[in-house]
């Protein structure tokens, strides 16, 4: 066997077979990172953006890989692959639409929903759909557990409320009732294998032509994915019309606080927010 060339710095590795074991290790091994699909972590390690001394591989833990209905909710294990969510027979609507646009077909066979959230890029494609679905995230440590609404999970680029000993274990969604419809729009620099320059998720509950509830989540235009609360308010109690759609999109664009980066300028992103929200609302209006 020829010598392998080392791409990554030294670290130790374990692959616990159960969640309990993983939680114990997370507490005992200070500075250990959790590895699932590795589609974000391995490139980061290669680029020396992060330098974990230990990786706890949870990709083989069956108890973290599931999609099931339970008491009116859909519960998804954090280590469930994006490809599995796409192929699921359980209706996950806007989440499935977003998953189809995440990465590329090969990375979708390794990337996980938990990894997408814990990597905490403001561009995370599963984050905005989960925000409009009012998803709850279960964070566990060996000492206990807590449930956090997804909109409170992100603190900044790459930063979440996860504590040192925590592992994200489950994502809980209450599927919206009949009459609710949702749309995900992503703009990338390519049609596939692209990080969102802007993404938006819109969910509307309409009764007798009046918007009863509206959720608009925007990605890549702030340090975290955000809800456009003023734009939401502008819709509630009103009838959808082209004028309202334009007004709402303009308000959403003002709530966006993007920066210039390699994928686009702040100015461009503000225009994109307006365009994406308009597109989503128009399509929902016609549906």
């Amino acid at each position, binding site marked *: *066997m*020829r*010598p*392998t*060339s*080392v*791409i*990554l*710095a*030294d*670290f*130790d*590795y374990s*692959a616990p077979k159960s969640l309990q074991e993983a939680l114990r290790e997370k507490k005992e091994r200070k500075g250990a990172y959790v*590895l699932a*699909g*590795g*589609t974000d972590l*391995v*490139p980061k390690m*290669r680029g020396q953006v992060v330098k974990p001394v230990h*990786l706890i*591989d949870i*990709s*083989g833990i069956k108890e973290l890989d599931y999609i099931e209905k339970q008491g009116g909710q859909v519960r998804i294990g954090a280590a469930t692959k994006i*490809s599995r969510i796409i192929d699921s027979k359980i209706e996950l609507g806007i989440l499935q639409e977003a998953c189809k646009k995440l*990465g*590329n*077909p*090969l*990375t979708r*066979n*390794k990337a996980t929903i938990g990894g997408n959230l814990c990597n905490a890029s403001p561009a995370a494609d599963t984050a905005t759909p989960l925000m409009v679905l009012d998803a709850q995230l279960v964070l566990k440590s060996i000492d206990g557990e807590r449930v956090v609404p997804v909109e409170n999970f992100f603190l900044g680029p790459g930063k979440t409320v996860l504590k040192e000993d925590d592992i994200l274990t489950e994502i809980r969604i209450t599927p919206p009732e009949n009459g609710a419809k949702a749309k995900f729009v992503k703009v990338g620099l390519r*049609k*596939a*294998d692209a990080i969102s320059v802007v993404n938006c998720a819109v969910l509307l509950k309409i009764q007798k032509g009046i918007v009863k509830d509206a959720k608009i989540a925007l990605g890549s235009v702030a340090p975290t994915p955000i809800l456009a609360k003023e734009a939401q308010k502008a819709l509630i109690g009103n009838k959808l019309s082209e004028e309202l759609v334009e007004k709402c999109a303009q308000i959403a664009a003002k709530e966006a606080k993007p920066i210039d980066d390699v994928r686009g300028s702040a100015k461009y992103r503000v225009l994109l927010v307006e365009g994406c929200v308009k597109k989503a609302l128009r399509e929902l209006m016609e549906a």
Partner: protein
Amino acid sequence: MKKYTLEFKVNGKKYSVEVKPNVTLLRLLRSMGFTEVKSGCEKGDCGTCAVLMDGEPVNSCLTLALQAQGKEITTVKGLGTMEKLHPIQEAFVKYGAIQCGFCTPGMLITAKAFLDKNPNPTRGEIREAISGNLCRCTGYQKIVDAIEAAAKKIREARQWK
């Protein structure tokens, strides 16, 4: 750094190797002599490193070698031989889908897994399926032609079974 024993299969044959945690599956396979698995971007964007892991196409550059524990890896050489090419390999040759050949192993792996799941795809679905495999030479047209033709050939062969 500590080494661990990795036991896995490659193209149907069992292997047991001592490997450090910081080695990717791509680098391990190449060091074992499976140089048909190519290194391109080593960050999951180009797809040339694609292998099948338990039948599913993945970027071997993003997979730690130890994550292949107990798994079955198939490289492009596991799809067919010179004497007996896989129908997709045959189609790639026939339809001029190979120029420099560097994207080809990854394309074939992706195409094989794709046609297993979707035996009668549209051209649009084929394009979508190979959207994680970059080619700088061909402009993709002939690759799509080849996959479409191979799909047809495989379907017809199934009818006779």
